């Protein structure tokens, strides 16, 4: 039913790489969808996490959002949004559904980054007469970066593997190769697509891990 040599032959066939549903296009699409969802999540979670960490108000949001997002199945949310907003806006629905799973880890990472800064540092910034904005911009944000990137890493791993759902609502990405391959019983294609997703996940995760270590020594 499937062998390593089939898989090698699949990768070697240029037909599988070219065209609208070829590997190259799907790969770029997969990465683009992932990055777009992470960008939206960052725009929401970063300011919110900094604000909650800075003021110490609204901590329940960090825990609450985390629990809700774990309870809501992404596939259900995606289908519900597509039904609600119509099929024309299915790409928006997909990005919102993906952002919904990316926001909680980013929020938690940002919040934890700010609150774990030693009190002495935050207090001395205040004692020097820095305004609230200055403390966020020059003290809390830089020192929380490492933890933020940690949250981003978790968000990335979850989003990059959930983009696979996109073809169910008629959008692309590497999930196409899996959904189509299963229906056609083309297991080489299924395994090849999965392998590429695994490679993206490992590369992206290592990259973020490296960035996290580089910002670690700020504290």
């Amino acid at each position, binding site marked *: 039913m499937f062998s390593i040599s089939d898989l090698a032959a699949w990768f070697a066939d240029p037909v599988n790489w070219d065209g*609208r*549903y070829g590997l190259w296009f799907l790969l770029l699409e997969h990465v683009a969808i992932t990055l777009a969802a992470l960008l939206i999540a960052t725009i929401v979670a970063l300011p919110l996490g900094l604000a909650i960490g800075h003021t110490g108000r609204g901590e329940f949001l960090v825990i609450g959002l985390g629990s809700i997002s774990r309870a809501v199945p992404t596939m259900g949310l995606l*289908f519900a949004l*597509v039904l609600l907003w*119509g*099929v*024309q806006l*299915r790409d928006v629905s997909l990005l919102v559904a993906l952002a919904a799973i990316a926001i909680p880890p980013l929020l938690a990472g940002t919040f934890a980054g700010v609150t774990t800064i030693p009190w002495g540092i935050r207090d001395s910034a205040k004692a020097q007469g820095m305004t609230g904005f200055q403390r966020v911009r020059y003290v809390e944000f830089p020192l929380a970066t490492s933890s933020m990137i940690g949250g981003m890493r978790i968000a990335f791993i979850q989003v990059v593997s959930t983009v696979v759902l996109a*073809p*169910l*609502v*008629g959008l*692309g990405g590497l999930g*196409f190769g899996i*959904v*189509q391959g*299963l*229906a*056609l*019983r*083309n297991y080489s294609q299924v395994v090849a697509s999965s392998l590429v997703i695994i490679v993206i996940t490992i590369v992206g995760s290592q990259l973020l891990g490296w960035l996290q270590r580089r910002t670690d020594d700020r504290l």
Partner: protein
Amino acid sequence: MKLSRITALAVSITALVGLAGCATSEAPPTDPSIETIVIGSQAYYSNEIIAETYAQILEDSGYPVERKFSLGQRDVYIPALEAGEIDLIPEYTGNLLQFFDPAATETAADEVYTALGLALPEGLTAFTMSSATDQDSYNVTKEFADANSLVSIEDLAKVTGLTLGGAPELAERPYGPSGLLSVYGVTVEFQATGETTVDSLVAGIVDMANVYSADPRIEQLGLVTLSDPRGLFLASNVVPVASGVVSDYVAYLIDKVSAAMTAEDLVAMNVRSVDEKLSASVIAREWLLSKGLVK
């Protein structure tokens, strides 16, 4: 090895004797040693309704029935059927033929049925097929059909810039973009619309879409199904497929269901499922009653 062969022989003889007994009697069997009949179904609401009609007509004749419904796709339940974990499942001639013989070229209903009989692995039997069909078909909106005066797939040849929506696998199916071009000279750009195929058609994201012919939405949304004069699509009639030895009386009962079920009946039952949100068992029961197949 030798012992198991003898056991197998003994079992077959017993089965044959049992068969002979059943063949002559048309009265509901009363033999208490009758084995439970396990009926499966795909994870497809319409298939579940058909499976329910099989289950209920058997139960009405006193057979104990076990339902193993929503078994997913063929990859999952065909091995179970071959292993004898399921005794009976409603299938579709064309799609099942394609599963066992991807290179099959037959498209007409009778040819597909004959080819299916040959393609089925040993141990599986296709009963007489029903006239009810649930097969792939190309559909356009009423407006699009009127604007381009479309009746059959042939008429699409004069339309340019067509987009075709369907499940991702349609891209590679023989009746997909390549078949449209070679059989009808129709050039389309394929867009994998997945579960949103019908919505995408109505929203104008695609011009034509592959929808199963028994889908209630064709009627509800006033879609126009393009006729297929050159036989691009495989006919896919509802056909019960059984595993191993099934008694003649069971076959007789199931054949009665297949003979009574028309394409319109199937669509009507699907409409009830989608519109009235009735359970498969209620829909099947009322249909069997309306046909006088159960009391």
